[in-house]
């Protein structure tokens, strides 16, 4: 059984890098968990259809990504994949292929997806071109790393 953790984002689009940075922080704080033989980690800067390859064979997967939402910047939300369509608007993904569209395409084509697919969304403040996160999102990274740790621990306990 494979558990997949995917950090998604663009490091040069400000808070869009929140998912990447949250996964990196989790890897630093919980190296044993991140290197567990049942855990596979991906850091994807422009995932589009390649996201399906990253999810291949996974029993459970967590996509960690920045989000635009009517919620305070830096707030962290764990959602099921069924909530993904609410994250399609205003995509800055390559040619409009957001993770939500990729997952929807896989479902339409009957391609296998992890039976459990969750999203850890970090609400962003600013997607302007920049190599830096906003203060609100930077301050939220420890909370996001803890949330990843709890999610992975729960999945490992189900093995």
């Amino acid at each position, binding site marked *: 059984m494979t558990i997949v953790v995917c950090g998604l984002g*663009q490091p*040069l689009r400000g808070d869009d890098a929140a998912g990447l940075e949250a996964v990196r922080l989790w890897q630093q704080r919980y190296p044993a968990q991140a290197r567990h033989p049942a855990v596979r980690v991906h850091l*994807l*800067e*422009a995932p*589009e*259809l*390649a996201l*399906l*390859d990253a999810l291949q064979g996974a029993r459970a997967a967590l996509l960690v990504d920045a989000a635009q939402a009517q919620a305070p910047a830096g707030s962290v939300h764990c959602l099921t994949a069924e909530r993904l369509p609410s994250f399609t608007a*205003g995509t*800055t993904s*390559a*040619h*409009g*292929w957001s993770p939500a*569209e990729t997952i*929807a*395409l896989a479902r*339409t*084509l*009957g391609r296998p997806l992890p039976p459990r697919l969750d999203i850890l969304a970090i609400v962003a403040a600013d997607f*302007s*071109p920049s190599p830096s996160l906003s203060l609100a999102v930077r301050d939220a990274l420890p909370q996001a790393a803890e949330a990843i740790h709890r999610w992975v621990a729960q999945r490992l306990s189900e093995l």
Partner: protein
Amino acid sequence: MTQRTIQVDALARVEGEGALYLKVQDDQVLEVRLDIYEPPRFFEGFLRGRHYEEVPDITARICGICPVAYQMSSARALEKALGLQATPAVRQLRHLLYCAEWIESHVLHIYLLQAPDLTGHESALELARVAPDIVQRGLRMKRIGNHILTVLGGRSVHPVNPTVGGFYRWPDETAIRDLVPDLTWGLEAARETVRWAAELPYPHLEIDYEFVALHHPQEYGILEGVIRSSVAGDLSEEDFETRYLEYHVPHSNALHSRTVDGNHYMVGPLARFNLNFEQLHPAARQIAEEVGFVPPIHNPYKALLARAVETVHAYAVALEIAQTWHPQGPSKPEIHPRAGEGAAGTEAPRGLLYHRYRLDAQGLVQEARLVPPTAQNLARMEDDLRLLAPHILDLPLEEATLRCEHLVRAYDPCISCATHFLRLEVERT
């Protein structure tokens, strides 16, 4: 006198952010604007002062779809500035890497971005519901392109292995040879793609374009060549800026381009196909002739078919290289910085990508000039919309809007490269 306004806040299935405004009075098109409001990213500015070796990795970040094009144009221009010539083994590997980028970019556009327009589906998701086998084929073809990028470049997006002079290290020869079965399947799938694409219902629109592309006498110009125009003939890469001029328009954060004679020209698959048909790989020429798709082609929507033929070319060339390549000598030469200037063009999936750099004696960039394909096509796209407008004036508003969007998408614009969705606004008075 009546007034109508069409507005689309974000044109889907293009890369980047922009809007379209169309103003029509009776049968007269008064104004067409592609408003590119994506913020400019100032890459040319922050390349100044950087060491030449950093440039391919920085310019690769301009685009997630065509990073190889940015790496290859920058590497070649810098090699000219430094007085270097890539070895045959490096050139062959660059050709394979570039074919991989063409495959993944062309297949994405053919199957997921433009085909839904031609088949009357709102999106690729809808197309996938009615024709899952077709879309599955496209996904597998694209995946092969991405896999080659990973094998040669270290990863499928923003490869890290290419550098000025060659590659940081040779890829594993066995891994290259292992690509052969996938490329063999992909070549046949690409032929099937051309047969399928030839049957799609293309709208009728014929435009007398000036086509501009790289031309190489011995091969389909991708990595190098002269700058060929269907109107003005050939120019060396070094002379590009003497005829092809960039200018600013108030409504766009991307510069527009014109020739020194004031013509708005087209770069991209249709330009390459029309100018370089004889240099296509025999497998690509043969399938094009089989479906009756031969130059001259002046219908912008048929860029999809040109992409499909180019995909056959890319698979065929990639297959030959994967079967024969082996490393020879060092993967990159020892480089001694010197002051100099170099200009080079390569053919990105969307068209000619020109780079010029001036270096100081320490190898630091003093000046950088980058002219991306979508920026060169923007003025041409506005002209095409102007020509399309009389044909769609009597259509219901929604359909007229969609026809405009289809035309823009046929160019596969990468607004991100040019600066970064599209809003369409048509005003009729």
